[in-house]
């Protein structure tokens, strides 16, 4: 197993755990956090590929990671705000009972 | 208060305040006046003459038991606002300092954990027997027993009284002396009278009256500067 593969494996594990969390938790905030974890896993990939890439001077990977972090910050802010608003509305953040979309 | 109220820079008042604290900081090194702290156990505030804390019983002469001025009239016990004085009157009479037979307290307790040093007892005492002490540190290990002062703990000599309240004590002495003189002359007159008539019933009643008159005169000499024109 090369170094790159180790990083990729770690990132996929992280991704899977994040996914598992997002799929299994009832607390909407933790689901959001799971999604954040998945984003982080992607970031690891970016950086790992940059590091093991052809030339470290070609910094697209780094830039992508930076942008991804910024987007994640925005996402977290809005997502959490939505959850708080939803809580105000329905007094729960339990995803199992948040199914009013179903009609 | 007239101050300028134009628009100023934010923080001007803050800077003024900072300057003030800086002045105090350096001032505390320069002028000792600023430092009001007293390093307590080593140095103490020079005790003022009029300071009072907890009463004590005055005795004349050297024997605390015999010289106790208290005649166990129980006025202070009655007048004490927090009721911290407990007196048991003796059944018999013992001669006092001048040799007159008087009742005396067999028990005289003051619970200083209750006492509030108001000196009402001093004010009402007709015999100048109870006075205010200046001692204020009574560290003990027990809350109740050690703070219940009995007659022996309370009894202090007239010399001690002179030591702590010189002005007041000398005035009291003078008053007592005057009273005794008056009593003596009166007694002499009465004796002369009694030679003719039947003996007087008791010596206590007129004594009380004169004593209460004496209390009102027990005042330090009035301030000399008071009436001076400027």
């Amino acid at each position, binding site marked *: 197993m090369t170094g790159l593969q180790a990083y990729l494996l770690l990132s996929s594990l992280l991704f899977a755990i994040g*996914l598992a969390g*997002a*799929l*299994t938790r009832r607390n909407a905030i933790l*689901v959001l956090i799971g999604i954040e974890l998945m984003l982080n896993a992607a970031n690891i990939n970016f950086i790992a590929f940059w590091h093991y890439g052809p030339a470290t001077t070609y910094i697209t990977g780094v830039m992508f990671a930076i942008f991804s972090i910024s987007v994640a910050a925005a996402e977290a802010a809005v997502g959490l705000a939505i959850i708080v608003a939803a809580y105000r509305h329905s007094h729960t953040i339990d*995803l*199992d009972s*948040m*199914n009013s*979309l*179903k*009609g | 208060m007239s101050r300028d109220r134009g628009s100023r820079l934010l923080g001007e008042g803050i800077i003024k305040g900072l300057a003030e604290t800086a002045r105090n900081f350096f001032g505390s090194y320069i002028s000792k006046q600023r430092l009001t702290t007293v390093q307590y156990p080593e140095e103490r505030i020079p005790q003022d003459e009029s300071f009072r804390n907890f009463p004590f019983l005055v005795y004349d002469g050297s024997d605390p038991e015999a010289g106790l001025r208290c005649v166990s009239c129980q006025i202070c016990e009655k007048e004490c606002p927090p009721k911290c004085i407990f007196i048991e009157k003796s059944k018999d009479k013992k001669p006092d300092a001048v040799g007159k037979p008087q009742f005396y307290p067999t028990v005289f307790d003051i619970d200083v954990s209750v006492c509030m040093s108001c000196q009402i007892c001093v004010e009402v005492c007709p015999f100048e027997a109870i006075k205010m002490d200046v001692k204020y540190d009574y560290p003990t290990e027990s809350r109740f027993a050690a703070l219940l002062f009995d007659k022996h703990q309370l009894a202090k000599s007239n010399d001690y009284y002179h030591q702590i309240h010189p002005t007041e004590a000398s005035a009291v002495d003078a008053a007592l002396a005057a009273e005794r003189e008056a009593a003596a002359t009166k007694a002499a007159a009465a004796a002369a009278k009694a030679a003719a008539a039947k003996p007087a019933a008791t010596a206590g009643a007129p004594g009380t009256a004169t004593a209460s008159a004496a209390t009102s005169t027990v005042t330090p000499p009035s301030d000399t500067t008071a009436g001076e024109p400027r």
Partner: protein
Amino acid sequence: MTWIVRYVCLIPALPMLAAGISALLPQRSRKPAAGLAIVSMAASFALALCAFAAALSNPSPQVFNFSWLQFGDQTLALGWLLDPLTAVMLVMVTFVGLLIFIYSTGYMEHDENFTRFFCFLALFAGGMLGVIIANSLLLLFMCWEIVGLTSYLLIGFWYQNPRAAAAAKKAFITTRIGDLGFLIGMVWLYAQAHTLLFYDSGRGALESGAVSHLAVTTTIYGLTLSSAIGLLIFCGAMGKSGQVPLHVWLPDAMEGPTPVSALIHAATMVAAGVFLIARIYPLMSAHGVEVVTPTIALQVVTWVGAITALFGATVAVAQWDIKRILAYSTVSQLGYMMIGLGVGGPAVGMFHLITHAFFKALLFLGAGSVIHGCSGEQDIRRMGGLRKYMPLTFLTYGIGMLALSGFPLVVSGFWSKDAILYSAHHWSVSQLPFYMASLGALLTAFYMTRQVCYVFFGTLRLPGHGPVSHSEPDSEDTRHHGAGHPHESPAVMTAPLAILAFFAFALGFLGTPLWPWFQSFLNGDHSVAAEHEPGLVATMAASSVIALLGIFLGWLLYGRQSIATCEAPDVLERAQPQTFRVLHQAYFIDAIYDATFVRLTRWTAKLADLLDRFLFHGIVQAISFGVLGLAWVDSFVDNYVVNFGFDSSWRSISMGGRAMAALQGGRVQAYLRYIGLALVALVLYLLWGVAR
């Protein structure tokens, strides 16, 4: 490249900047906001004049491009250009805009949202100017959308009024329908030409290379690519320029403040569509190698224009609202412009656009002045005799009316309309548009005369005529403090009227057949020589007659005996009540739309909902329950009757039923799960796909 080209971008930028600043201003700073808007517009006007001068000296398109966005190996460039078309439009828009801005300071004086109004107005003007200078279809589209947005904001400016809010929404949605076509056309164009720039030293989409490529490629039904794309883009123009069948928003847009109406219906927004077609005319008119007839695209433009022209004119005859009449007249005139573009090329259409811009702005502002004077009254039946009360307005309005009617020889409208009629007459495909246009012209003259008669002649029929009782409390009237009497508007409002009236006269002489300076300028040749073409005089005579006839008819019916009461039915209504009703309701198109499209959409949505809720869910549930039930029965039988072998199959079926029910869970995580599974599938597919 002259210096001005580089700075053309300032022309839209200044009003936008003004808008930005006044958006930040507090609501009460009215003067700064108005001042900013006017100053920026005046500066833009000055720049536009410079640009115009530059275009005069060098009529070939001058461009300034820059690359904006890079993705992969593709570069998306933006830019602006200066050519005669742009120059003319710039001058027109900035000038009319400036006048309208000034007028607005008087008209909107008492409005509490004065600052906001000027912010929107400036943004609107900026967007429009952006459309004009854009050298890239993308930039044009962006500005186009700004225009759309601000038109929404402005029409719904009095959003407390539900009708205004509804009108705004309608305008927005209707134009969006057209813009969809525009967007598709744009993307298609990019896919084919690999650029959205119009002119890019030979590589632009409107230049010969790309155009000839587009013109020879055919798509479905034998349509050439250029035509197809052109038609898609024309959809956008139809929406914005209110062509039938997307005209419905335009009359409703009268709910906005009158200066907005003037700005939208006269100078800018509606002109944007016409301008767009003029801009992409090379694309629209691109021929393959062999054909000489007009392209399909142009034919469509012509026909749509002709229908619109006639439609608008007929409907305008039967309206009561002073602004609504003008609105339908705008629809009609836009049709004329389209005809002009279709049959005669950009010069003809644009000429009418310019002249129309001036006199229609004049008419709207005049109408605004009338409304202002009558304390918000908009029904012409309740006016009358106003020429005594507001002589200046009457005078200018009359000029505008004559210009719109095409009164022979003196007014600009005559010349521009005449040019269209002439071109239509000589159109090789069909004569029908000509006749439709002529009929429209007749009707135009007729309804304008009717309107003027109603408003300015006869006796004053203002209800109450003392303290005005507001019949429509939620219309504009509550916002104006009017005295009992109609009164002349302040100078800040009448001065623009006078200026516009002057131009309603003067402009016509730039494009007479004797001295067609305008056409030649737009077409890019300097030979200002009269082309003596056959039939010119005849058409002129015909159109004169038509206009005069219309005016005469109007006077005959409405002017001869003055209308006494406001309850009295219209002359035409008495004669043909049915027809009048149909016309008054604009052929019931709104109703039809309501009955068809809107309801259809609602029904579809409802149906989808019901389907989802009952049918699909029900089916799934039913299947699942059915399967479960079956399985239960089965298992019952199984347990006691049949052997154990069925057990497994029952279980699997039951599981299947549950799984299917779960598909419709309505839960976030369920959907997330499917995404996860899809990811697995995708990766597997990719891996195997790569492996193979």
